[in-house]
């Protein structure tokens, strides 16, 4: 085999005997979230999990009562409450000495917007939760309205002339909570993605994973193109693939080529971006700024390892 990227992801001991998302779900064909579920299924092995999913495409896909397109226990929470309901489940598991790992699986609306306070509080409390945000940059379930994750220039049903501001730096926000692990993950980089899933499943405390998740319906792109679009988002520098440990040590996982051509292709392949509504130059400039900051953070991480001088003087008498 000469696919180094795929060395041994499939058919390993970490595979869950039953997929988390089963066939017969109602997600659109080519849904990035569905791919994310398939990846996750290959990371959790047979260990017990419970997943909280707020009101979003992720819960509609389960199908109507009493059926479940999920092969795992799922609590369908109210929109803003994923991290809080997961807190209850997670603390319950701890009180009862159960190894159950509690996950949240929420879209960008449930994470960046309505769920932000709840998420931030659970992170601040350092609840033992793995929170995964599948970010399709839109309110997909309601038919495609803008969220605070919608990128600059994207046309949605509520930004008919294109969004005039960019998206939040969600990984930065979460890392600033000082949580054990905050990372962004590219499904087009399966090795790195799988490593991150497995790494943070095994960690204690609050962990946050951000997954850019192609939405052919909302992005108005070919369903087949999703993974390729992700690759372009990464190579152009638009979507940094990084991880932040304990809120302080930043590691850049995939070096972009900052290809202007890739950036242009990324925008051109999605009809949500109207050529007359965005400026590639402006986007490229934002990418530059963002990456300068990331580089500083990554470089500073190295300095963190160096010991500080002993504090001068005697401790203050109290």
């Amino acid at each position, binding site marked *: 085999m000469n696919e180094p990227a795929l060395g041994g992801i499939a058919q390993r001991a970490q595979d869950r005997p039953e997929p988390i998302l089963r066939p017969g779900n*109602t997600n659109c064909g080519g849904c990035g979230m569905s791919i994310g579920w398939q*990846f996750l299924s290959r990371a959790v092995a047979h260990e017990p999990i419970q997943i909280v999913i707020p009101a979003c495409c992720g819960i509609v896909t389960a199908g109507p009562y009493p*059926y479940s397109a999920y092969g795992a226990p799922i609590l369908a929470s109210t929109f803003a409450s994923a991290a809080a309901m997961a807190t209850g489940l997670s603390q319950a598991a701890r009180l009862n000495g159960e190894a159950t790992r509690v996950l949240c699986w929420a879209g960008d609306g449930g994470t960046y917007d309505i769920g932000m306070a709840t998420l931030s509080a659970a992170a601040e409390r350092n609840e033992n939760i793995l929170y995964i945000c599948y970010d399709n940059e839109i309110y997909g379930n309601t038919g495609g309205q803008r969220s605070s994750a919608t990128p600059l220039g994207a046309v949605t049903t509520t930004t008919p002339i294109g969004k005039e501001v960019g998206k939040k730096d969600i990984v930065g926000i979460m890392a600033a909570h000082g949580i054990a692990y905050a990372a962004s993950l590219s499904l087009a980089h399966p090795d790195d993605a799988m490593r991150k899933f497995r790494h943070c499943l095994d960690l204690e405390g609050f962990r946050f994973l951000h997954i850019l998740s192609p939405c052919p319906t909302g992005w108005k792109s070919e369903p087949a193109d999703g993974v390729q679009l992700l690759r372009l988002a990464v190579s152009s520098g638009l979507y940094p693939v990084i991880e932040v440990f304990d809120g302080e040590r930043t590691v850049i996982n995939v070096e972009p080529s900052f290809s202007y051509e890739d950036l242009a292709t990324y925008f051109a392949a999605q009809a949500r971006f109207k050529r007359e509504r965005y400026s590639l130059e402006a986007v490229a400039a934002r990418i530059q700024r963002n990456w300068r900051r990331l580089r500083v953070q990554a470089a500073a991480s190295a300095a963190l390892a160096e010991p500080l001088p002993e504090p001068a003087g005697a401790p203050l008498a109290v």
Partner: protein
Amino acid sequence: MEIRIHGRGGQGGVTCAKILAAAYARMGKSVQAFGDYAAERSGAPIRAYTRVSDAPITNRNKVYHPDHLLVLDPALLGEASLAGLAEGGSLLINSPDPPERFAERFPGTRPASLDCTAIARRHGIGTRSVVIVNTTIAGAFARTQGIPLEVLEGAYEDLGLAGDLPAALEAYAAVRIAEPRPRAAVAGAVASPPPAPRTVAPAASTAPPPVLALTAHTEGPETGLKTGDWRSQLPRFVRNLAPCNAWCPAGIDVVGFVQALAREGPEAAAGILAEATPLASVCGRVCPGFCMLGCNRRDYDGAVNVRGLERWVADHAPIARAAEQPTAQPRRLAVVGSGPAGLSAAYALARQGHRTELFEGESVLGGVLRTGIPGYRLPDAALERDLQGILDLGVEAHTGAFLGQADLERLSQDFDAVILATGLQQARDLDIPGSELAGVEQGIAFLHRSNLEPGARLTGHVVVLGGGNTAMDCARSALRFGADRVTVAYRRGRSEMPAIREEIEEAMEEGVTFRFLQAPVAFVGEDRVTGLELAEVELGPPDDSGRRRPLVTERRSRIACDHVLLALGQSPDLALLPEDWKLQDGRAFRSGEALNVFASGDLSTGAGTVTHAIGDGRRVARQALIALGEALEPLTRPDRADAVPRERIRFDYFARRSPAQLRQAAPAERIGGFDEVSQGLPDASEAERCLSCGSCTYCDTCLIYCPEGIIHREPDGTYAIDAEYCKGCGICLSVCPRCGLEMVT
């Protein structure tokens, strides 16, 4: 009037209902339009409704007894979609099939049909996998109901859909309506019976299923929702044409043997090679490597060293006994000439059980492989190995059998068919002053001598004229025979040299000097050549061969030399044929009558490489058998344009890695004799660089990426796709590193 629309999520059924409503509203009617809103997504069946009335509409129900049905996807046609359609009701179907077919299928309805998908696709409405047909079919509907064009246009403007109007107008013009067929006397197939009144104890089949309290519910069964119904295309695993296979003139399954080597080892690879060629050992050394020119890896990090791998297989696997395909009716065939074309033809014939005799004028078999290619490139042992494989099949070889015209005449009578593969025996002369001088010799004669008469010597400065492989062979052989100095003079530039690149490089390493853009104009000397006059050449516009035409100038120079070897090209020697035979399209004719005599290899094609000759030998053997009445398909070469292009390879998956290099003796060491220069590849790991373009390697990429998780490994290791659930998104094909699938509609 009530209209019901059946479509799929994403096709825009609800918008279609709104367009119809808008049109009728413009006609002064009271209208209503709405859709079913449910959980299903892109591709799932949906319904939408339009209600039209002269009086204000108070009915808020869904439409159960439509006067008109629109079906946006013909796969949705069925009992459920047709339920309740009024007698004589109209039925508009998005389908390329003529409406008459639907009239037959659904008697009592008034069907119309149109391929709206094709129109919408042409107008770029929607995506590849989900074409949005709503605006198109609405145009067709307007026509079936006699809605005036200007009303339709107004409706599109009202809804902000003016951009889709051209598609609608095309549909308006193109839709066809069939006369209804009378309904058969038997029970109606279309209108569903009115719902049975609910009795106190309804039949189990009609009663809604009991719903458990939430508090009684501990496990959720699978939905069983057959999302396969949503799709418009289905992936399937296929073997797409690899460029190496498309490029190989010998017709070898290159990707097949390389992959077999990587996965199963040399024996399996040898078996695949033996399907096409008996000369793996030879080709693994002297093939120019056309496959490597086509290799998708070439511009990424260097072509896979297929030639080296072929040699590895030949050197490390026992002679492959190709699976024989015995014929029911063995025939007698003669093959004249035991060069690569003749050997290939004889092999192909013998494999099928035909009695094959091989005639060779020299005392040993091999033709140009023996007499033309020096031992340092192709040692006797390597050739013998391949020859043995051919003879093992029962080919009867006659050596020293130089056949004249009468002999050929006799053969054509004694044998069912004769294949002539005598190659290019006529060397091109140089008609300039001094060409008769001693020391001026044809290169192939020199090579013939050097290959068959050991111990020959050559001294002084040897000049070789030409730029092909023969020139390189002459130059390098001359060095090995003791020449003090060898110069190659060629009338074009280095990049125009037809010789194999590696041959040129190795010659240079060994000390051969090159003078490019030099054309000989005269040999100098009394009895014996002592020098050569060269003219400088400039390159003009391209000639028929695509190379730039050399234009000889008046600028001259002179070099002293002791020998000149001419390697200026060869041509077939047609004087061998009986005078009344004429070769035409590779077959001999006498007085316009086709003989069972066929020409193969360089004699026929003049293509000039061992590899071409092998392919042609096999092709002509097949042609001869067909001429004799065997029920076989002619062999054709695939079109390179059909091969998997570079753009379809996902290079992101493949780390850059340079091709493996051959192990070679140092130049100073190797010019001391005729030992083989190359010891081949150090191992077979180069095979792992093969991308396997177009052929699944079971790398699991599709399996990992399938959003539905419905690609599984079968017990035999192959993949299966669960079509019941496949939504047809095409991710599997798009992520495939090597284009090993295709989508079928």
